[in-house]
């Protein structure tokens, strides 16, 4: 499935602000894995996701997906294989465009965008059904500009857009961090439903240890740009927050505060 081979990334190399964000990550995901990623600020979680997505190139190492080498591909070409949801609800959707226009953009991910007509009626019907599964009433507001939606609604929509064309890999970068706890739970529940329905291989970064334990079949913890801990199988199932704290002496304010 996904394979990261000795991936390195340093920002501002050769300056006083030099920051080695990812320092030799090796990671292999199996088909259908739902991996949660935790780690303190600056541990390299988001950088790792961005390196997979191709937001910036790797300094060293390789990114492979189903044996295809993604390393030389630009971001927009990798998009064919990836569904992505970001931390900032504003980032995943175009505010000045309608809900159905945003969905139409996502529906064409990985396809040629030609001069065919934008949205067919059959497509509209599909979008309506898909929006109804969110349970937010958005199916009756298909022509509303996305900028008028709340953060939670936008995040749910981005999630739908990420999975509208089944992605080989779903990348969730703290996608509930900007939401209130109730909305965050709702979006996570939707995430779980979509992952289950389409058997999506998923990589989810979170700052919330409870979520990291509750969701997924595997948990990795990053520290100083490396994978420090990798828990899977039975051990992951029986994991508790106190286990994590005790076992790995995690001293990170934000993680503790989010308990």
């Amino acid at each position: 499935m996904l394979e990261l081979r000795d991936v390195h990334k340093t920002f501002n190399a050769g300056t006083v602000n030099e920051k080695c964000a990812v320092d030799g990550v090796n990671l292999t995901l199996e088909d259908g894995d739902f991996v949660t990623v935790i780690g303190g600020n600056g541990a390299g979680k988001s950088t790792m996701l961005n390196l997979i997505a191709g937001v910036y190139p790797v300094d060293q190492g390789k990114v492979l997906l189903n044996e295809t080498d993604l390393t030389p591909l630009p971001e927009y070409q990798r998009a064919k294989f990836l569904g992505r949801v970001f931390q900032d609800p504003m980032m995943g959707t175009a505010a000045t465009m309608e809900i159905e226009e945003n969905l139409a953009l996502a529906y064409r991910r990985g396809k040629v965008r030609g001069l065919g007509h934008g949205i067919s009626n059959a497509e509209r019907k599909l979008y309506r059904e898909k929006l109804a599964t969110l349970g937010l009433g958005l199916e009756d507001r298909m022509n509303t500009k996305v900028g008028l939606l709340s953060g939670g609604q936008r995040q749910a929509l981005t999630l739908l857009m990420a999975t509208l064309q089944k992605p080989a890999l779903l990348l969730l970068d703290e996608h509930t961090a900007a939401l209130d706890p109730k909305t965050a739970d709702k979006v996570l529940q939707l995430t779980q439903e979509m992952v289950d329905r389409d058997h999506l291989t998923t990589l989810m970064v979170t700052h919330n240890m409870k979520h990291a334990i509750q969701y997924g079949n595997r948990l990795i913890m990053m520290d100083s740009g490396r994978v420090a801990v990798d828990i899977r199988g039975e051990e992951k199932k029986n994991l508790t927050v106190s286990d994590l704290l005790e076992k790995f002496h995690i001293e990170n304010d934000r993680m503790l505060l989010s308990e």
Partner: protein
Amino acid sequence: MEIANLLNALPGAVGQGLIWGIMAIGVFITYKILDIADLTVDGTLATGGATCIMLLHAGFPVWVALLGAFAAGLGAGLITGLLHTCMGIPALLAGILTQYALWSVNLQILDGANQSISVDKYPLLISSRYVSTAIWIVALFVIVIIAVLYWFFGTSLGCGLRASGANPNMSRAQGINVNLNKIIGLMLSNALVALAGGLLGQYQGFADVKMGIGSIVIGLAAVIIGETLFSRIFRNFALRLLGVVLGAIIYYVVLQTISWFGIDSDFQKMLTAIIVAIFLAVSYWKGRFARPAKKRAAVNSAKGEVK
């Protein structure tokens, strides 16, 4: 200061406004859709005028001359696009560089600083001598251009182009080639500006290397006047483009009225700058002092009820 003088001058203002409306649609594509202030247009307008007039001098039919102007604009937009996307130059600076270079290109095309063309000797499409005919013909151009753009921005490619301007991060995540779309948008925009230059050259009976100076400001004035005055009623994309053309007409009617008051035409550029500044400020103040949060919430809930 006879009112009859003003009324007599108004059709001319409308004719000019319509031609500049086509130019303003070009500016709308870059400024509003791509979120780029493209300064290439100051050069492109003259390139379009020069190409059109010289092709007519060479004996080509008028539609070939206008197509030539359009193609010249595509080329100018392509250069700015490549400077911006392939060479990493900020869009504003890329536009300035192309515009600067076009000055020399325009002098070459015109074989001098200016060339005149007589409606008596050449089969011109429009001329300021026959204002009402010119208004009808340019209006037809405007309708066709708006119809084609309305279709284009509804296609998959066009939607991707709009998304590239609205949210480049999201666009890349959805597999849209943002750089390619920027180039296409810049080419389309400059082609329309050059077409307007070709029409303007015929209308005024000459092309001049200086005819494009400050045209970005006039284009922006039209876009901003159109959007500020009509944004409440014109929500549909085609109507928004029409609003931009109306903005250009209003600009020229206001200018005509000002000169009717006897203000020296030397002040034209300053007055234009003041008009643009005022309209930009109005849209800023509207957002800042109109208790936006409450208002927007009210609009939202009203919308929710309707739908």
